[in-house]
């Protein structure tokens, strides 16, 4: 499997300059994700207003794949409705394990398609999925983990 498919330029670029890489003091959702295979962790903050994700940010130590995936995720999700964000997470998680027809969806995926190379590296799938799993948890209203530990403010 070609390394270039995994470390596409856009991935390396997001790794170098991750978007929304900051704490969010006024978040109303905060979730910790972690990758048991390596011990790396990500913290995800969301501000959800009504049915819309108005802000997303993250921090954490991890590999290029995990950092780029989290960064691209924040950029893609910001401004989406909760339902849209959930649907996107489903789609990307399917893509990461090779269960999505990337060619057919390339238009819709946009730059997120760059993450599809991960599906050929089973040991690295968890790296890319970590942030998206954290997003799912954060968006799940029934999940107490989703609530920010300190109320916003």
């Amino acid at each position, binding site marked *: 499997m070609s*390394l270039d498919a995994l*470390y596409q330029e856009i991935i390396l670029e997001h790794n170098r300059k991750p978007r929304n890489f900051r704490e969010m003091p006024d978040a109303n959702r905060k979730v910790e994700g972690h990758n048991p295979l*390596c*011990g*790396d962790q990500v913290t995800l903050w969301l501000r959800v207003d009504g049915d819309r994700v108005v802000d997303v940010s993250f921090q954490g130590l991890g590999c290029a794949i995990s950092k780029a995936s989290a960064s691209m995720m924040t950029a893609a999700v910001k401004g989406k409705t909760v339902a849209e964000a959930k649907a996107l997470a489903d789609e990307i998680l399917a893509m990461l394990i090779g269960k999505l027809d990337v060619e057919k969806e390339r238009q819709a995926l946009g730059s997120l398609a760059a993450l599809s190379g991960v599906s050929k590296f089973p040991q*690295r799938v968890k790296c890319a999925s970590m942030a998206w799993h954290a997003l799912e948890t954060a968006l799940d209203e029934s999940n107490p983990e989703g609530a920010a530990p300190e109320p916003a403010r």
Partner: protein
Amino acid sequence: MTTLKAVAQAQAALASRRADFPLLVKFPELHYLDSAATAQKPAAVLDAMREYYETDYANPHRGAYDLSARSTERYERARKRVAKFLGVRDADTLIFTRGTTESLNLVATAWGRAKVKSGDEIVVTGMEHHANFVPWQQLAIAQGADLRICELTEDGRIDLDRLRALVTPKTRVVAFSHVSNALGTINPVRDIAAVARKVGALVVCDGAQAAPHLALDLDALGVDFYAFSGHKMLGPMGIGVLVGRREILEFMPPYQMGGDMIEFVYDETSTWNVLPHKFEAGTPNVAGAVGLAAACDYLDAIGMAAVRAHEQMLLELAHKMLGEIPGVRIYGPAAVADKSGVVSFTLEGVHPHDLATILDEDGVCVRAGHHCAQPLMRRLKVPATARASVYVYTTAEDVEALGRGVERARGMFG
């Protein structure tokens, strides 16, 4: 001239040695640098197991027929062979287990639950593999004892001064590794044992990374228990060893209970068999023991001094190559003579897992992660390192491929 000739001979020996390893022959472009995780197998080891299964296979100890007697004889011969490899004269103090992890759990449970009481202290070091850390930590929690962790020097050694300060008359156990799997540090076993012995503490040594690489004379090492795994020393999976001091093994309660380890089973109570059977409940892994004995034969034919010399040469090369790459940091002792088998390093700006993935494309197999030593990683203040580790079949070309790969990764992420 003579040195050049010796080098040429060693190279020829190495080339013919690689031909003994079917996996390496099958994948000539592979640079297997993860021998500290597990070693590849020479055909001789696989052949020995097969020959046993095809010629002398039966349940040992129990049968009243010749085939079973032969199987028993194979098992006990393997025990004696491994004991000889280790320098253990009383072969009945050598217990076959599943591996290092089981060996250490056996001691922490059977000895620990009987002897460690509330208020006692257990000393481990900051460089232990989880197998020699978590069982003691959990024993301490269960018994209300105090787990004390000996901190390390800057260059990844056990700090003997701190150890002396940490060990008190309340210390019941000092558990430490002979060689660190994450740093390669060779620890001064005799000195550590002396500190422990002074206060009457049990001396438990994790030899998982030492038995495969260093000539051992266990009877002279001064430890009470020594544990290692077969699969890291050319042997098969599923077999390991615990060597214990006879007086301690005889007093200790057994660990697992079942067939072969009992003497009499009454309805209300039971009595135990003699050593080594008391600690080998159930049908033993005879094939595994036979394979491990064959691995000892293979290593002794090379000679453990030659094994060490070969590895030192490779470590020198690795330190030199990696040391020249900007952004590389090597953990553990700077002098190769103080290390065995392992180079643990990071490359600035590149996560070790990315590094490993990039190296893998060139067939360079290294491990990235915490190396089952999270307490050490916290102390090193890194989430992970990359680790290259060598063995009898590793070539200079393998190490060079590692150097080239690290350079390439630096370029990609630069």
